[in-house]
């Protein structure tokens, strides 16, 4: 659905993108990660044909945005980072108006169902100008989905949402991607969103793709799993550990353990097992996730392609 090879783009004499690679296939939920100013939004604008690029190749839904931008955009739902609306419209009026730009005339029923899905069903009669930031964020998701796109591009979709709102948006995205034909490109700083939703990731930094591939493979390659710090009453027996648990370090009364795969019942059963093996656990703290470690390793340093794209 998206194929970007060695994309280079300059804005006002400054090279913003210096080598972006991205490959998103039907059914993928792709997490595009990178620090502020890394070039994530510019990459999105380039693949929508809103930014002309110097060199490289972009293919979106079989078309080239340099020539077929309008027809590509007809099949793409976009949620930009800044969720702006016409404050004097109501949400249903706005969605109907916006849908028409896609030659799609949503019925009252479709609009009401969409607003219900994003949690704005009871607030539909209010003017958008009276909405909170979180409500506007939900409406932005509805706007991206209203034209029934084949490809969904979301820039920080859960920013400003409470945990319940985040979960609702997650559910919507999972539902959207569930038919296996559509694709989702998710730009976010929230690694938890990527952890939950994405099967592929790309990490970009300073205009370059640093890492790309299947999330599962990448985590497995770097020794995946989750790391915890445990404060113990006494020194434990480190020779008798449950399967999938390894000691990663020891400092004072704190023991750092790497859990490769938590039991299906959740980590609490693992703590019970350790307790039975003599680990007198007094306190448990979750350490940075492996994805976070991966992210930290590949960002914040200016070096050429650290790894070639993993296809």
């Amino acid at each position: 659905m998206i194929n970007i090879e060695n994309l280079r783009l300059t804005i006002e004499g400054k090279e913003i993108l210096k080598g972006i690679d991205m490959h998103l296939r039907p059914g993928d939920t792709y997490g595009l990660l990178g620090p502020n100013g890394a070039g994530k939004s510019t990459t999105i604008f380039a693949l929508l044909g809103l930014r002309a690029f110097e060199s490289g190749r972009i293919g979106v839904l079989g078309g080239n945005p340099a020539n077929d931008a309008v027809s590509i955009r007809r099949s793409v739902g976009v949620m930009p980072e800044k969720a702006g609306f016409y404050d004097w419209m109501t949400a249903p009026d706005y969605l109907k108006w916006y849908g028409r730009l896609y030659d799609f005339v949503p019925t009252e029923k479709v609009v009401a169902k969409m607003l219900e899905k994003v949690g704005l069903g009871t607030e539909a009669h209010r003017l958008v100008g009276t909405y909170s930031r979180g409500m506007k964020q939900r409406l932005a998701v509805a706007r991206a989905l209203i034209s029934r796109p084949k490809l969904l591009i979301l820039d920080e979709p859960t920013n400003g949402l409470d945990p319940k709102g985040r979960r609702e948006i997650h559910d919507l995205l999972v539902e959207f991607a569930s038919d296996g034909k559509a694709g989702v490109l998710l730009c976010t700083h929230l690694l938890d969103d990527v952890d939950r939703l994405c099967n592929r990731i790309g990490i970009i930094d300073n205009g370059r793709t640093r890492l790309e591939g299947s999330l599962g493979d990448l985590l497995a390659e770097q020794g995946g799993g989750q790391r915890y710090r445990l404060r113990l009453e006494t020194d434990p027996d480190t020779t008798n550990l449950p399967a999938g648990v390894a000691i990663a370090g020891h400092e004072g009364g704190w023991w750092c353990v790497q859990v490769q795969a938590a039991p299906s019942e959740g980590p609490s059963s693992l703590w019970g097992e350790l307790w039975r093996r003599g680990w007198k656990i007094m306190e448990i703290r979750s350490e940075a996730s492996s994805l976070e470690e991966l992210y930290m390793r590949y960002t914040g340093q200016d070096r050429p392609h650290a790894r070639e794209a993993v296809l």
Partner: protein
Amino acid sequence: MMNTIWIIARKEGAQMLRSQRGMIWLLTFSGLLSAFSLLLVSNTELSLLDNAQVVYMMAGTVMAAGALLAAILGSDAYAGEKERGTLVPLLCAPIAPNTLLAGKILGLLTAWGVMFAVATPYLWAVGASGQNLGAALFYLALFGTPVALGFGYLAVALSARTGSVLASLLGTVTLLMLAASPLVIGPGLRGTAVGRILDAINPFAGALNTFDSVIIDSDPFSAQTSRLILVTVWLVLCLLAARRSAARPDFQ
């Protein structure tokens, strides 16, 4: 394409008529015309101004107010949308740059149409007793429209190029004030060579001279050809500038 242009134009029109700002503008414009009409009618009653002179002044005022409104709306067209965060969603929709521009321009035309409609009863009130009301309305439509819209297109061009409402408004209103300045269009400078050159290239002066010619002097249409070309060229140049800027607007 026509459908998309219409969808955008309808939004532009509704934004003007339904927003607080649009209503304030229309009320201010009506108040200004009321006060001006009262002043002019009083002058006519006291025989300080003849009826044709009053209609001429009223037509000029409507055109200036129309150009100012077009400058305000044009400045808001891209930069205002950018500042409110609504430009990117528009650009992400399947709309060609020229279609978006055409929708915005149709919105400007609608705003000018509303102003023209609001101004008509006032023109009628001050000019009904004279012979030149019809000519005033006809030439205001023919010459006032390209002049006012030209300033609107220029504002659109600056708005798309700079991405700043303030910069666009400042640039366009400054040019409008220069074009409509009594120093430029007054009789003093007109007597000089520089004044005559400015008069020949200033679309605002061109339209005003036509109003003077047809309303006061009752000259025929054929005498207005060069000025009609001037205002048409002005409109086309401003449209080209708007088209060029709107092809790659500043949105980020």
